[in-house]
Every structure is written in C-alpha cells, then in structure tokens.
C-alpha cells in the first residue's frame, strides 16, 4: 500500500497519469484529438519545448538558483541564423547546425562567465542577456533578409522519417537517452547533482564547480540553439521572437517533471513528461471552443493546480 502511494507520488508517474487523463479529456471534448496524427503533431511541438527544457534542466539541477531566462532569445537567434545560413538549400544545413551551436555555446559561455566570475545571480545575468539577444535580433533582421528553411530540415521536422515518425521526435528521444546517460552514468552528470545539492561539499571533494557551471550554461545555450533550428524547420521561416514562449514554459516543464528549482534533485525523464503535459494542455485549450480570455484563465489556474501536486516548499516547522 505504502509502496503504491509513494509510487503514485513520483512526479514522472503523476505527469504520465495526467497525460493519459488529458488525452481522454481532449478526445471527449473534441473527437479526433487523441488520434495518431494529432498525437504526432503534439509530439513534434513537445519535442521543440522538450529540447529547450533539456538545457534549462541541467542549469536548474546545478543549483545556486540556476535558471536560464535567455533560452527564448537564443531560440529566436538560432532560427534566424539557421534561416540565413541555409537559405532554403539543403547543402546549408550542416553549416547552419554548426553556426547555431556555436552561437548557443557563445551566449551560454557569457552567461556562465557572468554567473561564476562576477557572481551575478543567474536570474539577473540571463535576464540581461535576454535583452541583448532581443536587441541583436532586431539588428540582424534589419540587416539581412529573413531566411528560409531548407526542404530537408522541414521534412526532418514535419515528415515521417522512420516508422512513420518524424525525425525531430527521434531527435527528442535521442536527447532523452543522452540526458539519461549523462545524468546517471557519467562523472559529469554525478557532479551536476553534487554541485546542485551541496556546492561546498562538492568543492571540497575536488569538483571544478566554476567550470561545471559555465559548462551547464553552454549546454543550455546549445540545446536552445538546436530547438531554434528545428523551430525554423517547423514553421518554414523565422519571425520575430519566435522563441519567446520558451522562456518560462521550459522552466514549467522542468518543474512539472519533478526537478526542484533549488537544484540537485530531479532528472530529464520527468521533464519530457512535463513538456508533453504542457503541450497537451495547450492543445486541449486551443481545441475547445472558448475565447482567448477563458483559455488563459483555465491555463493559468490549471498550472497552479498541477503545481500543487509537485514539490511544495518545506514547512518552516520541522
């Protein structure tokens, strides 16, 4: 009995149960919602969010109030860079990937340096960086024509690749496997948890805390860049601030996945479920016939309700 209860209390299990419940609800509200095609479409959207959330996840796991508000900016920037580098030609995909990864890593590096060397709180540093990125977007957009996605990239994101499943979903699965491996089977992963749960103890045990933290922000930047690239493939061409929505929703996906914002606790499997949960919820809200205001109210209230299921803060009285 107790085992059953503690099993049901696991964030991943909660999220999966909620996903199933929401799919039923969606199907009930609008028949066809839970059809294979629709689910694939939802999965594509969830992949984009999930990939951004992977980076957000490691930054948050690393603790010291780790958070990356600049991911949205990097997603937008990456989409623009990719569009211009490939400009509709398949041959440009590889250079675009490299350029995007480099850009993501660069801005992650800046975030990491600010957070570690100058000891700026991550929230402030990445918030400032977001402003810079948004400014940069305007500059680029004015200087050069907005590019187009290569057909190959669009196909990768939207068309079935293997077993009738689009490439981006495979990519997301790969990211999931990579993250699971990294967090549980590599020294780097163990060290992420170590600095997140007790930074000082980790330091005393020889963990290179600063380098680790800079690395986490770079990972976050690169994942956001990959998502930006795929987002371009999804929408065909980039438009202003396409990535903005990912800033807070990536954090919410991480929290719904059971990762504590205090760091050191959680993992990526839950985050994947969290991303899916969030996307399905949004999907239902766009399907049902209520106006935008009702949609937002229900969305906000549901988010609050769901949060009550997850790690609430400790009571002050022990």
């Amino acid at each position, binding site marked *: 009995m107790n085992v059953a209860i503690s099993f049901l209390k696991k964030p991943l299990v909660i999220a999966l149960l909620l996903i199933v419940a929401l799919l039923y609800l969606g199907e009930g509200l609008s028949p066809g919602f839970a059809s294979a095609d629709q689910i694939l479409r939802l999965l594509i959207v969830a992949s984009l969010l999930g990939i951004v959330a992977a980076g957000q996840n490691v930054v948050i796991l690393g603790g010291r109030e780790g958070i990356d508000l600049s991911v949205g900016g990097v997603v937008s920037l990456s989409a623009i860079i990719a569009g211009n580098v490939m400009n509709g030609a398949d041959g440009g995909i590889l250079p675009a990937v490299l350029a995007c990864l480099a850009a993501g890593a660069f801005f992650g590096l800046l975030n990491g340096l600010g957070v570690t060397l100058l000891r700026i709180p991550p929230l402030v540093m990445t918030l400032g960086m977001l402003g810079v990125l948004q400014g940069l977007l305007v500059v680029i957009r004015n200087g050069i024509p907005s590019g187009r996605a290569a057909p190959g990239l669009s196909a990768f994101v939207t068309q079935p690749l293997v077993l009738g499943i689009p490439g981006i979903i495979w990519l997301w699965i790969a990211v999931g496997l990579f993250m699971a491996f990294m967090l549980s089977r590599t020294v780097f*992963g163990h060290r992420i948890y170590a600095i997140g749960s007790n930074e000082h*103890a980790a*330091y005393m*045990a020889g963990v290179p805390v600063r380098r680790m933290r800079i690395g986490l922000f770079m990972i976050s930047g690169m994942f956001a860049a990959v998502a930006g690239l795929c987002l371009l493939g999804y929408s065909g061409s980039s438009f202003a601030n396409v990535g903005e929505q990912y800033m807070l929703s990536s954090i919410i996906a991480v929290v719904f996945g059971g990762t504590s914002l205090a760091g050191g606790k959680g993992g990526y499997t839950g985050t994947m479920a969290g991303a899916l949960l969030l996307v399905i919820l949004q999907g239902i809200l766009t399907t049902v016939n209520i106006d935008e205001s009702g949609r937002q109210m229900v969305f906000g209230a549901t988010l609050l309700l769901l949060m009550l299921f997850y790690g609430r803060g400790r009571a002050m009285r022990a």
Partner: protein
Amino acid sequence: MSKLKLNGVSKAYGATLALRRGDLEIAAGEVHVLMGSNGSGKSTLCKIIAGSVRPDGGEILIDGQPVTISGPQSARAQGIGIFYQELSLAGNRSVEENICLAMLPVKARMFIDRAALKARAARYIDLFTGVFGDGFAAETLVGNLRADQRQLVEIMKALASEAPILIFDEPTSALDRAQVDRFFDILRRLKRDGRGIIFISHRMDEITAIGDRVTIIRDGETIKTLNLNETDPAAVIRLMVGGAGDMPASRSSAPAVASFATGAAMTVDKLSGAGFRNVSFEVAKGEILGLGGLHGQGQSAMLRAIFGAGAITSGGIRIGGDHFDARSPRDAIRRGCAYVSGDRGRDGVIVGRPIIENVTPIHYLRDRLMIAHPRSLKEKAMPALAAMHTKFASLLHPINSLSGGNQQKVIIARWLIDRPDVLLLDDPTKGIDLSAKADLFALIRQLAADGLGILLYSSEDAELLGNANRILVFNGGSVTRELTGEDRTRYNLYQAAYEAA
C-alpha cells in the same frame, strides 16, 4: 509547582530518532543545566519547547497546565524565550531592531515607534556595557559584528522576551571571560526574579558556576537529574558517556614516539594565514600528529588552508619532499592530500544523492574518470565501505537515510579508494556515536600503520590523548606547546589550552 514540565517528549526525523524520550522539570528560580554529548538531543529538546520543532509525542506542562505549543509565536505567547545555538538574527538589521524584532513597538498600529524601540533595546544593551568590545553600537548592522558580539545580541534578544521561562542553548561558546561573567550576573538576577532557566554549555566550570540542577541526556534520552552541589563533574561525565566510561580508542594508548624511519610525510614551515600564524611542524609517515587546544584557535583554519580551501599568506608546505601549495581542494586531492571535516552537513554530505555517489567523487578525480560504470564503481566502493564497517542496505539508497555516524563513515570511505599520502582530520567525530568513533579510530591507526601521515584535530581531548603520537596545542592561532611522550596528559593539555586564553 514546576514552571515547566516535559513528559516523554519524542521526535524523529525520518529514520533518525533525534529525541527518544525527554522528561524534564524546571522549577521557578533555578538554572537547570542540560548536559549531553553532541547529537544527544539537547537542541531538539529545546526547539520543541520553543515551538520551532514539532514533537511526535509526549506532553508539555506550563505551571502545571498541559499546553499545546503550535509554533514559535505560540511559545512566546505562553512565556517561553530562547537563545538559539545557531542564532536567529537578521544580518542586515541593526542591533536594536534585532533585539526587539519579535515585538516591534508600534504607534498608530502600523508605524514603528523608534523612540520606544530605542529605549527598550537600550535596556538590554546597557546590561552589557563595557564588555561588548569595539565596533558595537545600537545602530550597527548585526552582519558587521564579530561572532561574540552577535552572540551577545542573541542573548539580549532572548532577554527582551521577558519570558518567565528562558532557554539558552550554548550561549557562551564565543564569549570571552568578562562577557560570560556579566551574563552570569544577569542570570543570577533572573533567578532571583523566579524565572525558570534552561542552560546548555559544554564547559564544566561554567556549569558548576551557574547551575542548580543538571539533567543528563544521552542518545536522545534524559537519563537522570542531579543537584549540582551534591555531585562532582566526574560523576556527571560518567553518566554522559554511559557504560562505555572511557573512549574505546583510548583503551590502548598510542605509542609515545614510534620509530618513523621512513621519513617525513609532510613538513610545514612557518605557515601563516587567516586565523593562524607561524606554525611549523613535521608529520612522519605513519605518525598521528594531534592538534589540541580550545575550539577555534586556528586548528581548523590551518587544516583547511593546507587543503587549499583557505588563504595562506606566508610559509611553506612540503609533502614527500615536493613543494606543496594547493590552490584549491581539487589541486590538493590530486597531489595526495585528504581532508575530512566534522561539519558533514556543510563540507561532506551530498544530500539526497545515493551512497555510491557520495563514496566516489575523489576516485573520479584521481582516476580522471569520465564514465561512471556502476559495476566497477561498486567493486571499488565496497571494500572502502567495509573497511569502515559502514552499515547500509543498498549503495543506491540516499545518504540521508543513514545515521550521522554512518554518513561520516561514507564520507571517510571516499578517501580510501585511492590512498592519499597525508590525511587531515578536522574534528572528524563531531556528533557521531561511540561505536562509530571506535571504528573510525581503529581505521585511522591502520592507515597510520600503512604509512600515511595523519593530522588529527579533535575537540575531544580523550581522542587526542588516546590516538596521537604527539600533540601540538594551539592557542590564539599559533602553537604554544608540544606534548610528547609522558607529557601527553589531560592536565597538561588543559593547562596549555587555557593559558592566557
């Protein structure tokens, strides 16, 4: 009638039983001393009375009436004031604001009455006129004060509650002689007013100076209450440690000076840094060099500095003949230095993570691993944990599921996979039980026999006397005396520690 009475109060944190059974009776007009070793449950007991810890069972009576204390606020309302060992001060608020924080005087129901606040705070500040030292004023931010001054503010804050029942959980640990004397004068006056006072201290002289009765608490259980004027310190200590009587480790005392033919493991030459100055010594391979003296005389600061976690301003260190100046713990570990802190919570335990991840971080670094292969790690970890007689169900259980002693064993085991050359022990047995201590010292001696050079600082004299080949006594940041051979007696250690302190 008793002012305060506790019947069978208990508290568990998860699997750890912090307080098994607390029975206590405080009379009006007495200073009631709580004595027990670290981790015996004194602070938990105090916090239950003060409302900041929720008891699992038992009852509390005030003036004979059973009461429910639902939180610190309710405790205050029922006449309980407390000095918290870890202090409860707001660093960015002024001394006077901190003193009055619990009940800020207001006018028009919302504005702080500055004049009343100043006046009230001054009443308690004035009690310590002449002893609070430089840089102390009513307007000073508490964060800018020295440790002893902060402790005084916490005392003033407890006094300002004007509560009939006052709890002081180690209020004197940072105070100097004059400050303690003044504080005791105040306590005597409160006694005459009929207040009931609970007092915790580890210093026997203080306890006999101020206490009326003493209750001994051991392994979470209140053992016995005695009248202090009818008993002697030795009897109290015997009750505290229980049947074991002596430190198990001291049953066979360490050799005076063994023949360390193999040479020096570490040489320290005129080392100075934050908190210690001009320290020189040499540890031979196979030697256990004890560091003694009162708490906070530079022993920890020096050990941390050697390990690369504190500043060294001048002097030199050599390990195995090579110049050694670690810029970080990472650097120190790579060069064969190990450090175990008694403050596991801060320096050791990676909370919430599996035992295996708590054993392996040093191995990761020294073997430059990238991949954490569970099976090969298990092969490395098991012997290290077994050497410490660590009790655990599975390597994958979180380290917090273990008792304090077993947690510390895990932390020590992490240094055993790849042997270091020098082991720095910074009060490693703080808050762990006797059997764990015995295991630990057996291992330390084994390591010494294997040729490690070991530096051992301990706040418990018996541990030093029983295990160290030589003892350097620290006082005010430097070594004031070296005890070797027959000089290693409790008397000499005390005398050197208290000299001009």
